[in-house]
């Protein structure tokens, strides 16, 4: 694995101010070096006897897009799902290691941490758009109501903010109470993003968010992800390597449950340091 040793103290104030390994002094947008929002340390995950993740170590850069690439079955979705504890209900599953979320340094996969709290802070968007069979506005309100928000004005404002954030407001503002399932695939996916945004998460996980969409809808989602990185940390799994190259700042290549290489996207796609990465991204794998 090719991540430089990263100094991580348990309460490591200098650790999360430290630069993300492989990070250029400035990114393409002229922003300064990113500091890690989360640090994955020796993370292993087991589905019963099967070890799906093998001691993964990597930082997740704050307010940047990190892409996970790798062939099917390499563990990238499993890795992503660890971040909001999606495996908890799977019988016989087990986490080892930790995902430390800064600045409080809580361990996302620690037993003492409530998965509901984790999911309030870390939203997720899936491959197939999965809005609830209710109205557009209700979909966005769902998480807020769970949190106990009741005021109509407050909720209406939050709906507008989330829908604007997901670049969907102009298309649906006249039919907020229409059924969500009547939207197009791309709109539904943006509605799911709005739903994830409504609770003001710090991080959003995307599991192949555009693989069921046409190129135009895909472009809109990509544009949206680029805008989201201003406020939230994004972790995205994608099979489309060009997409990873286009939208991410950092890329991690995984293979058979291991993290093979983690580097800035520009470096990984032009001059990877590992042969396995090179073979995969140039289409020589197999």
């Amino acid at each position, binding site marked *: 694995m090719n991540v430089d040793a990263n100094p991580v103290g348990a309460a490591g104030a200098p650790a999360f101010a430290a630069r993300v390994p492989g990070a250029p002094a400035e990114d393409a947008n002229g922003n300064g070096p990113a500091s890690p929002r989360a640090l994955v340390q020796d993370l292993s995950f087991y589905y019963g006897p099967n070890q799906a993740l093998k001691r993964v170590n990597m930082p997740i850069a704050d307010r940047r897009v990190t892409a996970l690439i790798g062939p099917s079955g390499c563990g990238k979705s499993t890795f992503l799902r660890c971040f909001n504890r999606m495996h908890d209900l799977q019988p016989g599953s087990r986490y080892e290691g930790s995902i430390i979320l800064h600045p409080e340094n809580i361990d996302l996969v620690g037993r003492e941490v409530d998965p509901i709290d984790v999911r309030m802070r870390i939203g997720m968007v899936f491959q197939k758009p999965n809005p609830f069979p209710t109205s557009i506005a209700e979909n966005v309100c769902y998480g807020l109501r769970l949190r106990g928000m009741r005021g109509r004005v407050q909720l209406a404002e939050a709906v507008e903010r989330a829908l604007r954030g997901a670049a969907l407001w102009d298309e649906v503002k006249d039919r907020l109470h229409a059924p969500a399932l009547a939207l197009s695939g791309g709109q539904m996916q943006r509605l799911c993003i709005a739903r994830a945004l409504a609770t003001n998460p710090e991080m959003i996980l995307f599991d192949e968010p555009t693989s069921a969409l046409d190129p135009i809808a895909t472009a809109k989602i990509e544009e949206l992800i680029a805008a989201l990185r201003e406020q939230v940390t994004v972790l995205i799994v994608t099979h489309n390597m060009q997409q990873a190259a286009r939208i991410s700042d950092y890329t991690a290549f995984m293979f058979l449950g291991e993290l093979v290489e983690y580097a800035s996207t520009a470096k990984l796609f032009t001059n990877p340091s590992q*042969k396995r990465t090179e073979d995969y991204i140039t289409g020589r794998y197999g």
Partner: protein
Amino acid sequence: MDKIELGQHILSRYNEDLEQLRTDVLQMGGLAESQLRQALHALATSDSSLATEVANLEVRVNQMEIDIDDECNRTLATRAPAASDLRLVIAIIKTITDLERVGDEAHKIANIVARRGGLERGSVDGHRIVRHLGNVALELLHDALDVFARLDAPAALAAVRRDRQIDEEYDAIQRQCMTFMIEDPRTIRAMIDLMWVARALERVGDHAKNICEYVIYMVGGRDVRHVAIEDVERQLEAHAATAAAELAPSAGTGS
């Protein structure tokens, strides 16, 4: 990644496309090389019919530049190459520009022969003065194409170093020409022709050096343009040391 393999793509047509591109570049390089060889021969023999042949080759070299460029465009658009494949295509796009310019320089030399019937051989033997420079430039071009064919980064670096020899030789010729012109103003016309020839050969050396630099980039991903050779050598040595340490069994602990 200090090794570059063109084959073994899952898409076999992709292998063939990249291999074809590389073959085309080498063919174009061969044409540019023979253009220069003929231009130098024309200069040595003051044979203006050879000069016409150089002009004919120029047309073919230019056409190859356009064709290879088109093929690179198509590859970029349809295959979206990454990593070493991307570096190969980028290096090819740049290499053919330099090769085309080598052709231009050869053409310039041939033009002097065609217009003036060669360098004057009065009191000063112009050809004798540039003969050595011509041979070194030709050799360097040949080596640049050779390292391109073999994807040999260390040899490319050695070739880059030899461009200095050409630059020194060029400076010496300039000084010589100036001395002759001061001594006898009747030689001015001949000396200016001679300086044009020397200048063209010096440029050929630069183009060959550029090609070597693209090879270093293509193989190891290191951009060595505008970097002192000594620094590049130090970097390569440091890199080799790290690679050797990584290969040591104690370091193979994965993540």
